[in-house]
């Protein structure tokens, strides 16, 4: 029985190849002839956010189990804790994305543009206080620091040899309770700061919760896959189908929870029909591709586990549950893709050109300009820009096209890109490589099974009888 994970050179090489694929993806996006900056940064944002979330949820799973006197997760405790090693750098990477946004390297966050270039409109006034750059970046840095500290502290604490000592056990509960409080606040706040703020006008009051469910699905799925992988390599001998069954039940439950929140968010906004809320859905259902990915994400994340994972046998069969886990990891990436890519896909230069064109006075565009003025509550008398005639002409065409499609669309320029291409897959693979490298690196430092845990004996005898 092998006790400590051995990070072999072969595995390292595979992971380096994956990271290399990510670099290739980033290079493709950088060197692509069109303006692919927004696409590049959307990729980086979606992947960083996704894997940071998985890491955070790993710590949450251990903490929640610990304060609830749980024993079911003891054998997988080190795997959950090792997931969090990506969160040590992930938070700082997210803060870095914000800093680059404020510096003008990319234009993912519309409201940065609003702060620096145009008067604040009434609908975003209070939000602009919250999104003042210093406060915004500052708090993300605070979250990142907290996650980094907690990841290191929890990993070290659960490696202690005196955990059966009641005093130490009590302290572990305090530590875990503290992390749950930190997690509850930072997890909601990071989802507003990083993802919800991509569309400045849009509100969703359950967004933090929704992201929690997404992290949950992805983290359980990742744990299932890693447990199966480690077992196939001869580690974790004491983990059997009962433990995987428990993880599978959580995966199934969180998938249903995610679907519930997805539908809640959609149905209330569909029914209430408030402009700043519906604009979010118009952008998605207005473009054919994103309509497809939205329903694809719903099918993979809801219908697939509902029909595939419901039976007891499916959750106890490593192949079946592993396949479901892999599908759900991709499905939740597609979900974040839907949130990130549409918002950041607007072409910055096209926005400027269109604004100029709007003030030129062509018949169609006057309507656009009037609508824009009414919406913004401001008037600008700028001289028409004569340069870049070809681009302007194409913009007029697009504006007309947008007008024909619907009111909300008309105010936005066309997307600079759409769809999951080879670049997205490569960047995702690259981030997965980094994530797994940090995971295995952390796992190899200590024995996989926490021999000193007071609940280990109980967990070894785990037997899942029902469902």
């Amino acid at each position: 029985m092998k006790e400590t994970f051995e990070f072999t050179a072969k595995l390292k090489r595979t992971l380096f190849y994956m990271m290399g694929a990510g670099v290739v993806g980033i290079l493709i996006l950088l060197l692509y002839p069109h303006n692919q900056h927004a696409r590049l940064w959307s990729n980086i944002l979606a992947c960083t956010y996704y894997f940071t979330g998985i890491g955070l949820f790993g710590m949450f799973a251990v903490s929640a189990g610990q304060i609830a006197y749980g024993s079911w997760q003891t054998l997988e405790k080190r795997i959950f804790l090792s997931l969090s090693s990506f969160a040590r750098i992930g938070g700082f990477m997210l803060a870095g994305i914000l800093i680059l946004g404020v510096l003008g390297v990319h234009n993912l966050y519309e409201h940065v543009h609003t702060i620096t270039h145009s008067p604040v409109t009434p609908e975003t006034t209070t939000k602009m206080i919250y999104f003042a750059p210093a406060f915004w970046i500052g708090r993300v840095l605070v979250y990142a620091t907290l996650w980094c500290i907690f990841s290191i502290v929890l990993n070290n604490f659960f490696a202690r040899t005196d955990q059966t000592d009641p005093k130490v056990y009590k302290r572990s509960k305090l530590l875990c309770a503290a992390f749950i409080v930190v997690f509850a606040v930072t997890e909601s706040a990071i989802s507003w700061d990083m993802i919800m703020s991509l569309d400045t006008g849009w509100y969703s009051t359950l967004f933090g919760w929704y992201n929690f469910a997404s992290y949950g699905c992805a983290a359980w799925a990742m744990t299932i896959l890693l447990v199966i992988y480690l077992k196939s390599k001869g580690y974790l001998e004491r983990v059997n189908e009962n433990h995987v069954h428990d993880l599978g039940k959580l995966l199934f439950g969180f998938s249903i929870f995610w679907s519930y929140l997805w539908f809640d968010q959609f149905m209330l906004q569909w029914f209430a029909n408030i402009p700043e809320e519906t604009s979010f859905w118009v952008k998605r259902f207005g473009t054919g591709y994103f309509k497809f990915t939205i329903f694809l994400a719903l099918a993979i994340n809801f219908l697939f586990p509902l029909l595939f994972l419901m039976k007891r046998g499916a959750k106890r069969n490593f192949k079946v549950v592993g396949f479901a886990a892999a599908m759900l990891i991709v499905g939740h990436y597609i979900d974040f893709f839907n949130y990130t890519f549409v918002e950041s896909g607007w072409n910055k230069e096209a926005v400027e050109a269109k604004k100029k064109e709007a003030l030129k006075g062509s018949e169609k565009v006057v309507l656009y300009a009037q609508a824009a003025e009414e919406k913004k509550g401001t008037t600008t008398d700028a001289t028409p820009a004569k340069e870049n005639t070809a681009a302007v002409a194409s913009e007029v065409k697009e504006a007309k096209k947008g007008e024909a499609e619907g009111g909300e669309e008309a105010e936005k320029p066309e997307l600079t890109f759409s769809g999951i291409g080879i670049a997205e897959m490569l960047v995702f693979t690259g981030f997965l490589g980094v994530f797994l490298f940090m995971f295995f690196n952390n796992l190899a430092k200590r024995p996989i099974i926490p021999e000193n845990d007071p609940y280990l004996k109980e967990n070894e005898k785990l037997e899942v009888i029902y469902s």
Partner: protein
Amino acid sequence: MESNKFVVGLWDHEEVYLHAIGHIRKKGIAIYESLTPFPVHGLENALGYRDTRLHTTAFIFGATGTTLALTFMTWVMTYNYPLNVGGKPYWPLPSFIPITFELTVLFSAWGMTLTYLVRNKLWPGRVPRIFDKRTTDDRFALVFDAEQLTEAQKNEIKSLCTSEGAVEVKDKVFAENEGL
């Protein structure tokens, strides 16, 4: 045709009881009923019970609820009395979903409960057959059907129970149709 004559063995410890069940089943003696004051871990495996099929009933009842809710609301809102509610389409599927969900849960919960009660003969007014009152307190009972058994076979079962640690073995005879 229900039996009226039984042999009842009583144990006072769950571990001994579980081992006894294993040994008795290995001898090829059929166990009619097993009564314990609390759920004993691993008892259904020891008794060789099949997995419950209650899940399947839950699915069937739930699917009935889903179908009923969707078809009824579609009939009312789209065909029988179409109303324009807030400019929404005449077949507003998203607003049907919560009700469909509720009806699915309601049907599967009620269906499962009723199936369970009927299957266990727990309808109102039924007087249950009580083999020993202490099975709700501190005794673990094994019941053997003795209708077809000869006196020698009964004695064999009794001595087997005693040798497996039963603290008490007795005959239990019900009057015809008493408490069915």
